[in-house]
């Protein structure tokens, strides 16, 4: 299953010649709002707290308790809506969605079914063609809506003892459900769109959006049809917990549907789970059967009214209102703007700006290095992407965890720029720095005798030696071998060096 996404896409294309299939992918993404307290209660929000330690009376649905909307969650949703080019509804409504489940204490979820807080947006994302970083295309997916809703608790099924354990810590945490229109056609597009959304959310701070901690959950709606025909029956793929798996799950599902249809079978409108170990989707044990959620207006929450500079009532307590314009003015630079600025300011390639932003903290690291070095940004970027990033990847570390700080790297690059060391030596110093032994580049250079030989007499002597050999004086060859040994710190095989030198000199 390690076949790349694009191979899938081209397979699809190959089949097209016989019986064309158009895959359609839409996404429903739940992003947990980064806030101190829950959407409708004062309980704290915290990942991996002891079970049921963050549960208010409301979260446990004790009779008589009422929801009180968390202003921070509203602001996070407005921010996200603005960042995704949505129109923000000045009046939105809350609804109850009913179903019985052990981790849903009230028997309903408060959500925004009728009038959500933000609608009609768009998200631009880029992806590379044929896995070539140099060939990037930008695509756009429409955002249908963003709605505020409560998270559920967690059920842990213990099948051996046939019991279910419930943890309500997550129950009532604020979610933004971002609904993306079915504008995508393969796993890689879906993955790129989600990655861009993730970056936006993290930039805004509206969600930490860490998929492995469940702060970003993606469900994919997949169908295939022939061009000119209505969309096919779709399946919903759940249980996708990384962006890489999203691409795999979507592509698997597209291929599965095509195979099914081409063998004359039909697609069921069902929910499927992605099995990351097997790399395929499997029908989910339908926990609720066909559900009628019996939506109803939430009677305990008045309509959510938002203001802008024009509609803001003069006598209103500012603590009580959310001002869309105020939030708009304070939006941070979004990833697309950040990338453009990086390209413009430092003259780096656009694809490099993507890599810089894709790694959390990498663009900041890059800019920190730039500030502390005379080396041209175009050269610095090579060090960042080729050296630092590959070391990080190799050791599965984040930028923050890098043993080489921006200060040390800048110091090293300055020595390189001032020709104190050669670029080969610099790489050696970097490798030493990575060990994190607390040595400075200078100390390493001295210790390892990596200084560039700058002394004119020394160099003249070496050159003379070479000339002498060229002239036929084979005795000085030993001197040359000595120099190679010095350069390689005695690790080179003298016999081999001698053979090589003799060959080179006779050219």
């Amino acid at each position: 299953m390690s076949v790349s996404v694009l191979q899938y896409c081209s397979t699809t294309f190959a089949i097209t010649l016989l019986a064309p299939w158009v895959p359609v992918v839409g996404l429903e993404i739940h992003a947990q709002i980064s806030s101190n307290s829950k959407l409708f209660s004062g309980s704290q929000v915290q990942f991996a707290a002891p079970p049921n330690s963050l549960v208010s009376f409301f979260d446990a649905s004790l009779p008589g308790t009422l929801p009180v909307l968390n202003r921070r969650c509203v602001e996070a949703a407005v921010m996200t809506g603005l960042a995704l080019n949505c129109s923000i509804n000045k009046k939105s409504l809350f609804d109850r969605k009913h179903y019985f489940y052990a981790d849903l204490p009230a028997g309903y979820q408060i959500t925004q079914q009728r009038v959500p807080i933000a609608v009609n947006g768009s998200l631009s994302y880029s992806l590379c063609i044929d896995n070539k970083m140099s060939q990037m295309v930008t695509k756009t997916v429409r955002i249908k809506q963003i709605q505020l809703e409560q998270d559920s608790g967690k059920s842990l099924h213990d099948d051996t003892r046939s019991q279910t354990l419930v943890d309500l810590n997550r129950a009532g945490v604020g979610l933004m459900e971002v609904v993306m229109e079915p504008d995508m056609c393969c796993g890689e597009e879906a993955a790129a769109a989600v990655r861009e959304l993730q970056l936006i959310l993290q930039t805004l701070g509206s969600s930490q959006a860490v998929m492995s901690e469940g702060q970003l959950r993606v469900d994919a709606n997949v169908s295939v049809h022939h061009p000119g025909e209505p969309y096919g029956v779709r399946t919903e793929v759940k249980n996708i917990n990384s962006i890489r798996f999203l691409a795999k799950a979507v592509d698997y599902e597209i291929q599965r549907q095509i195979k099914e249809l081409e063998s004359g079978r039909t697609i069921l409108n069902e929910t499927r789970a992605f099995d990351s170990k097997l790399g395929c989707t499997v029908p989910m044990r339908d926990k609720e059967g066909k559900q009628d959620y019996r939506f109803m207006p939430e009677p305990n929450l008045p309509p959510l009214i938002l203001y802008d500079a024009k509609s803001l009532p003069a006598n209103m307590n500012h603590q009580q209102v959310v001002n869309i314009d105020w939030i708009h003015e304070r939006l941070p630079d979004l990833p697309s703007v950040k990338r453009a600025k990086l390209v413009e300011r430092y003259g780096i390639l656009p694809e490099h700006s993507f890599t810089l932003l894709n790694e959390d903290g990498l663009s900041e690291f890059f800019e920190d290095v730039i500030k502390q070095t005379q080396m041209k940004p175009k050269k610095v970027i090579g060090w960042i992407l080729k050296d630092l990033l590959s070391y990080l990847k190799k050791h599965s570390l984040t930028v923050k965890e890098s043993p080489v700080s921006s200060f040390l790297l800048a110091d090293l690059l300055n020595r390189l720029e001032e020709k104190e060391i050669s670029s080969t030596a610099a790489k050696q110093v970097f490798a030493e720095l990575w060990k994190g032994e607390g040595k400075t580049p200078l100390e390493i250079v001295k210790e390892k005798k990596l200084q560039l030989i700058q002394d004119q007499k020394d160099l003249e002597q070496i050159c003379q030696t070479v000339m002498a050999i060229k002239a036929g004086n084979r005795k000085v060859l030993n001197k040359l071998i000595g120099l190679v040994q010095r350069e390689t710190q005695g690790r080179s095989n003298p016999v081999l060096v001698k053979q090589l030198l003799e060959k080179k000199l006779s050219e």
Partner: protein
Amino acid sequence: MMGNTMSLVSAALKEGRVAPTELCQRCLSLIKSTKFLNAYITVAEETALKQAEESEKRYRRGQPLGVLDGIPIAVKDNFNTAGIETTCASNMLKGYISPYNATVVQKLLDQGAVLLGKTNLDEFAMGSGSTDGVFGPVRNPWSYSRQYKEKSVPKSHSEDKDSNWVITGGSSGGSAAAVSSFTCFAALGSDTGGSTRNPAAHCGVVGLKPTYGLISRHGLIPLVNSMDVPGILTRCVDDAAVVLGSLAGHDPKDSTTIQDNFKPFELSNLPDVSKLSIGIPKEYHAPGLSSEILALWSKAADLFKNAGAKVIEVSLPHTRYSIVCYHVLCTAEVASNMARFDGLEYGHRSDMNKSTESMYAATRREGFNDVVRGRILSGNYFMLKQNYENYFIKAQKVRRLIANDFVKVFGSGVDILLTPTTLSDAVPYTEFIKEDNRTRSAQDDILTQAANMAGLPAINVPTALSERGLPVGLQFIGRSFQEKQLLTVAKWFEKQVKFPTIQLEEVKRHDHGVFQHQKSASFL
């Protein structure tokens, strides 16, 4: 003493003529001797006495917390009370002790009131008789009054007081009976379709349903969130104004409460109605309205006319759709609100453990009575995707029309509406249970229900005794948040009609002073 109004007792406490503990003891012993009324589900004797002692200390220091300090009160058993069982008269919550106080309960306690206990109701407040709770029906104290006994002719000797007793109305029948039988000086009820005003009318007490949003619902176990209002039951209009003043205002825990601060008010001792315009909605001349009440209603209208008020007939054309509309909206919210009772977090849990689903089903079958289950069933039906538009949305539209009727009438210059509260006086229990809960609720809410649809303040004022010697009340409906005007009119009317005091043997034995306040002349 026991039959006095809260205001008089408050003065007595202040002057030291009676001590809070003594007052509390007297109420507690009266509760015991009137136990057969079944007005209370839980009597919190110990905590009540403790609260009375605390109050007494404050009085001794000369620092009482206000007019409510030391006043014994009762609270309907659908309000959460920390440490005291809250059952909603249901098997589902039998033995349930809430960890928190409802905002209204907390406010009363903060002002020094002594909480005697929790009063009986229809299960989850679903009913109009206070007959459908798991702890049995509430008996109307007037069943045992001299007034009723004199007028009702026992069919035979064998039929003792156990066959003739009449219902309290409901669903706040326990609270109404508690105030009416002098076991407390004020009580909290709840009012969704008339549940405070209806029993108030049948028990001869004042029953106030404030404007929706004026009093916090936090801690009131909901029936219909969009219509529920904590209700106030007292012996006189002035007392209702005092309790209202102590409860009203914004609550950060209830987002549907008003944002503005509420200023408590006192009612003038010489209320004036001469400049008012009183509307008589013709639709309240409903089928089944007893001729007695009809006569009383027009007599009341004449009273206002004679006092110089303008009395005009008005029309609220959509009121007749109120009951059917309420049926849809109420059951839908009930279906939703009751979903939380699944046996997992609290309340009854069935032993059935085959699966989570079977446990839910068994828990809910065992925990809820037929009325609750029936409403859940119809509510879910109305909310089904294919029915939602035809039922729920339509009912919401009709609700808007009903509310707009009131807006139009009040917009035309009418200040207050005058209507009957009930179709007739209280019927005997044996009569009442001949019809099912649904039919009864539909009949009994007919005159009170529209005010809930529109969120308007309304009050029952006890007016006279019927030919059978039972209380009959009339209802005033006011403009939104115009409680002061509403209560002023109610107070004026109260003064005119001089409703007689109940004459109870049980009370007489406990309190010799009770009859000295008896009014000599009555309205009829």
